[in-house]
């Protein structure tokens, strides 16, 4: 007998960005903008003797989710670590701006789905990449200000690190799986700068305990927790499109208050089980090891909800 959790396929973690898009959207509704045949590629990688990708590792376009139009952006985490760079960044920013411009018109969309899978800025295009991150943040907030929710889906190999972590935090709603990770400074970078005593990047249980999906959803760094299959991500994207808070001054003030409270409650903790113990979880050490059903039950029975955003 093959356990049901394992045959529930395909897996988000294992899928390519294109296959994730195909799995999230209604069948055959995806229309890509600047697709591979347009050959809009990085002009910089050749200088570093690196092969480019036809889509520069970012796929953007429009499609439908449960019959309603959405805009979708997916990073390919396997290409150059799914990084923010000049071309890939411009594709993201351009799509977000187009969504804002079309808000309220017949071309308007019901939501933007942001399938993050990135280590952050592409080192070979660092300046352009940093600019891309800040332009993305600005354009993303513009979309939200136009009344359109932006839903982040995080569960790929590269996680959402660096600028990807910042962009995630700006979204209306964040969906994550157990394998998903969100942070700004990556484990290896912390170890390089502060030593293995501060953060041992090879201790993968520690990495996930701090940055992983379960930790993030318990603390409010993510809003929805899903099992790691593509269908669960699709269902959560459809649900959260309607649950996103309005982008108002009140929401921002509430978010600020929420974050201040979190810092004062847990700011002195050294590791996440300490946080979970303080938050009153019965068996904090077991949180990473219980299966997805048990963890989802824990979330719902404790009614863990983090409003604002």
């Amino acid at each position: 007998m093959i356990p049901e959790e394992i045959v529930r396929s395909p897996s988000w973690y294992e899928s390519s960005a294109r296959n994730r898009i195909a799995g999230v959207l209604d069948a055959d509704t995806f229309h890509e903008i600047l697709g591979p045949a347009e050959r809009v590629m990085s002009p910089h990688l050749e200088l570093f003797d690196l092969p480019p990708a036809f889509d520069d590792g970012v796929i953007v376009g429009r499609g439908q989710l449960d019959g309603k139009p959405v805009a979708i952006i997916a990073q390919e985490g396997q290409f150059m670590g799914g990084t923010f760079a000049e071309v890939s960044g411009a594709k993201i920013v351009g799509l977000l701006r187009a969504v804002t411009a079309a808000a309220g018109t017949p071309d308007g969309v019901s939501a933007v789905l942001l399938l993050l899978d990135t280590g952050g800025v592409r080192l070979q295009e660092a300046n352009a990449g940093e600019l891309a991150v800040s332009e993305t943040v600005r354009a993303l907030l513009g979309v939200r200000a136009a009344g359109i929710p932006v839903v982040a889906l995080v569960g790929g190999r590269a996680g959402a690190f660096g600028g990807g972590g910042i962009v995630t935090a700006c979204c209306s709603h964040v969906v994550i799986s157990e394998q998903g990770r969100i942070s700004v400074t990556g484990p290896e970078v912390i170890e390089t700068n502060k030593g293995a005593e501060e953060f041992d990047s090879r201790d993968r249980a520690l990495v996930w305990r701090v940055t992983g999906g379960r930790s993030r959803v318990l603390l409010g760094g993510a809003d929805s927790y899903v099992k790691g299959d593509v269908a669960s991500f699709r269902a959560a994207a459809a649900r959260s499109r309607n649950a996103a808070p309005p982008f108002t001054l009140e929401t921002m003030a509430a978010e600020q208050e929420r974050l201040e409270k979190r810092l004062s409650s847990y700011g002195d903790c050294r590791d996440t089980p300490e946080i979970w113990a303080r938050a009153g979880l019965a068996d904090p050490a077991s949180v990473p090891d219980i299966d997805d059903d048990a963890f989802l039950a824990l979330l719902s029975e404790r009614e863990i909800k983090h409003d604002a955003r």
Partner: protein
Amino acid sequence: METFTIRAQARASLPGTGRQAIVGVVASGNLEVLLERSETGDAVVVDVTTSARGFRAVWEAVVADFIARSSPGGVRFSIHDNGARPDTVTLRLLQGVKLLETQP
């Protein structure tokens, strides 16, 4: 990196009506193949950009065997390779033509 073009004649043109398709990812040990139905007659063009130098003869052998096997006339294959092994290259080429054949 190394860039070269392989030209060949297939026995027949590829069936189906799909105009273009893409398979694979430029990950380590992997490659992406963009297929476009842009060549005349049964001509086949394979543009290769690869991170591994010195394997042109291997590419030519792999492509020759592939064309003998699936006869993809009229198709241009544009490849970005990040050190894929020959069997992975063959697999992607086969996946690509299958996609192009079957898509509407």
